[in-house]
């Protein structure tokens, strides 16, 4: 404020002073210029006058240096006269002020007289055939002489006057020049002085401003540093000019406001995070439940088939057991000697067939056991999607068994499992479900293609790739293949080509989710329409 107003007033003063000096100088320069112009006119004037004098005097010279009888003499003198006349005209035109009629008229009269006498002298015999010629010629010569003397004096006067004029002009010019120089000198000094004063004023003002602004601000800064380093509340004394005081106050208010805002925001953030965590847990739970539900759905679908599967061996075992019961009763009655005891022929038949019946009953039971075990295996639910090392081959075999009723009427299943395969860390329940889905899909594809006119083939292979540290499961069917236009969409949830109510459209979506998301694996397929489809599942051997 102080600096601004101070420097503004200072600048105005300098401008005013500069203007005054400048206009003063300008005036002086103008005067000098006028004088110089006058002097220039004078020097021009002098040379014009001199030219006039020279031409006029050349009349005399011409008349003197040529012999009397030279025929060209008068004409040359005439040329000089012509120029003298023009010169007199021009002098009178241009410099009438300096050379008024009093000076020029006698000269012009003399020139005219000179011309007359010369033209009289020019008249030469024999053309002028009169006796007076000689006397007139003599008179003309006399006239010429006297006029010449007169004119000569006049010309000298003219020359003196012209020189005087020039001298006067030059003197006036040099006086003006001196004046201008003096003036310039003074004004230059005063201007320099004023400028120095101005700069001193500015420096002083700047220093005062620095004192009144910079110190409170540096204190403010110190307080801020302290509060940051010591982790103390910001506190600074309110000193200095009004602006700085107000700034300090506002800064304090700002910092307090800031602190409360930060606290509010932080607590809100913590709350949100907790909510989010809860939600994530719930999500995961839901996902696991979804996978399991789907599995259960599959199991449900498979249940009748499995029941049928179990039914035949149990029937078979039951028949044999009935036979064995009959045999045992026969043997017992024989041993007790009951009258109902069978005869020897019958006994030998029983004795012959009993071991076979035992064997067959055992086989039937064992068959049932296998199925039940497989089902148990399949339905196994890992806790919290933990990935334990599992025998993948065994899992695949179980799944094939569980799904037997889905494929056995349409296809043969060929397994080509890598016996060297080590335990693969995975959630075996989920993998089972994926394999089941793929096998069932393959079986359905084959069924749709052959429609009970023949049997297809499903090939399942596992292969360990040590170089990539992974295992690839491939499930190949020779069904109808996947139509090209749906190939892109098959992994989408709720996408199905089956009739409404038959498929949920979740199978392949869950397979994708399980392999890619929870096992960091890959799932892809190769399909040729009308020839079959191969699904590949690539699982890493180590889970991170």
């Amino acid at each position, binding site marked *: 404020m102080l600096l601004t107003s101070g420097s503004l007033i200072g600048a105005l003063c300098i401008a005013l002073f500069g203007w005054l000096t400048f206009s003063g100088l*300008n005036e002086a320069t103008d005067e000098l210029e006028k004088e110089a112009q006058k002097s220039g006119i004078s020097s021009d004037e002098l040379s014009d006058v001199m030219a006039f004098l020279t031409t006029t005097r050349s009349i005399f010279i011409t008349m003197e240096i040529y012999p009397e009888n030279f025929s060209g003499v008068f004409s040359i003198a005439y040329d000089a006269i012509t120029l003298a006349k023009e010169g007199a*005209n021009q002098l009178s035109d241009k410099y009438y002020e300096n050379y008024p009629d009093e000076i020029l008229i006698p000269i012009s009269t003399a020139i005219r007289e000179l011309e007359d006498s010369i033209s009289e002298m020019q008249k030469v015999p024999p053309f002028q055939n009169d006796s007076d010629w000689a006397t007139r010629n003599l008179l003309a010569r006399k006239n010429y002489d006297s006029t010449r003397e007169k004119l000569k004096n006049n010309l000298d006067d003219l020359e003196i006057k012209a020189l005087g004029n020039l001298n006067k002009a030059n003197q006036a010019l040099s006086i003006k020049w001196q004046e201008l120089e003096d003036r310039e000198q003074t004004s230059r000094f005063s201007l320099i002085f004023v400028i120095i004063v101005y700069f001193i004023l500015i420096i002083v003002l700047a220093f005062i401003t620095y004192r009144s602004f910079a110190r409170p601000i540096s204190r403010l800064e110190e307080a801020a540093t302290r509060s940051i380093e010591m982790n103390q509340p910001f506190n600074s004394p309110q000193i200095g000019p009004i602006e700085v005081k107000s700034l300090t106050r506002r800064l304090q208010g700002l910092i307090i406001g800031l602190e409360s805002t930060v606290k509010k925001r932080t607590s809100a953030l913590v709350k949100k995070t907790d909510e989010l965590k809860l939600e994530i847990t719930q999500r995961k739970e839901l996902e696991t439940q979804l996978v399991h539900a789907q599995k259960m759905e599959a199991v449900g679908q498979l249940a009748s088939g499995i029941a049928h599967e179990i039914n035949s061996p149990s029937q078979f075992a039951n028949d044999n057991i009935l036979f064995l019961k009959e045999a045992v009763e026969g043997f017992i009655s024989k041993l007790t000697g009951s009258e109902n005891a069978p005869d020897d022929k019958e006994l030998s038949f029983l004795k012959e067939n009993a071991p076979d019946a035992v064997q067959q009953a055992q086989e039937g039971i064992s068959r049932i056991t296998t199925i039940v075990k497989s089902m148990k295996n399949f339905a196994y639910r890992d806790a919290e999607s933990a990935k334990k090392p599992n025998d993948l081959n065994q899992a695949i075999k179980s799944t094939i068994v569980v799904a037997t009723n889905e494929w056995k009427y349409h296809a043969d299943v060929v397994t080509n499992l890598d016996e060297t395969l080590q335990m693969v860390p995975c959630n075996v329940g989920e993998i089972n479900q994926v394999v089941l889905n793929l096998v069932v899909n393959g079986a359905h594809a084959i069924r749709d293609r052959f429609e009970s006119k023949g049997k297809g083939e499903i090939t399942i292979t596992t292969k360990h790739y040590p170089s990539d540290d992974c295992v690839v499961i491939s499930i190949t069917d020779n069904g109808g293949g996947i139509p090209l236009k749906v190939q892109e969409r098959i992994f989408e949830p709720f996408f199905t080509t089956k009739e409404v109510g038959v498929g949920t459209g979740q199978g392949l979506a869950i397979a994708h989710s399980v392999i890619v998301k929870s096992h960091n694996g890959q799932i892809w397929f190769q399909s040729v329409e009308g020839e079959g489809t191969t699904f590949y599942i690539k699982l890493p051997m180590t889970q991170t």
Partner: protein
Amino acid sequence: MMRLILFFFCFFHFSCSDGEIEHSGKKKLNSTKPFPITQNKEFSAADLKILNRKEFQKKFVKINPGEFMMGSSLKEKGRSIDELKHKVILTKPFYISKFETTIQEWNELAVGLTQYNSFTITPNEQSVILALYGKLKSNKTFKNQLSDSLKSQLEALLAEQPNSNIMGLLELIEIIDYWRKAPENFKKGVAHSLNFKIAEFSQILDSLLGNQNQLPVNNVSYTQATAYCHNLTNKAYAQGLLPKNMLYRLPTEAEWEYACRAGNLGSCGLGDGTTLSGLNANLDGGLKEYIIGSDTTLINRGKLIPVTSRFTRFEPNKWGIYDMHGSVMEWCYDFYTAYNEGVSINPIGPIRGTRRVLRGGSFYRTAFECRSANRESSDATWRGSEIGFRVLLGYPVR
């Protein structure tokens, strides 16, 4: 801040420069000059008697007083900067020569050096001259009169020596002089030997001489040209053929341009003033871009050709003046300087200077340099091969 200061400075500056408009001081003007300009005078009966002589009218044409725009307009093709257009009033009548001064005229007055050029003669001309020379040699009276230079030139020609077909003007004049003086019988003999009549033989010799004699004189300085005019004046005065108060002199620049334009405002004074090329003047019209008008014939003769009514090949301008454009440059009276603006009455240029004005261009110059308004200048003592002059009979310039 700085802007504010700057603004104030500007403000002050402008406010003080406002007052600087100067009023030029009034100048007292003289109403009458020491030698006032005289008005158009009527010629007296005695003067008219001299001026209306046939032989004078054959050579000179009267130009009446009048006014015209001197210089060229800014649009004129080939214009130079020194051709400021301004009004000129000429108050006195004058008679200007229709033709440039010829070698014959120059030699008759014998100002300074006489001019005798050499020239090439064609085989036909050679045979005529050698026939005459043969008879002269065998004639008793003429045999001893023949000059040495004539003899040596014609002997060389007879012997068919190389470069012998070049003949001097002086020798040609000499041999033709013999022919004129010779008796009828002698002439008859010479003429019949080539199956000519005497008149025809005379005709051939006349045109041979005329073609050389009637060339415009060149290599003439301003001072020589002025001296020629003085001599012409003196001679006329002595013969009583000089009108009162009049004299022969060089035209002033204004008089020259007035006569050259003959009322035309354009580039040249010939015809309607729109065309100037090798077709209507003896100039370098060899380049299409340097001719004025739409002529398609490009001519550059590269030499002088005879003037005067008998030999001229070009049309005169409207006022009957020949060869104002091209041929030779013509000395004017004035010192060379820039034109003054405004109206000038009988201008004669400044009273001091070194260079005199040359007008009209030459056979060596393009049409641009031969325009009516084109100005050249040279030192008064310079003698150039493309410089000649034209005389004027009029009142003294002042």
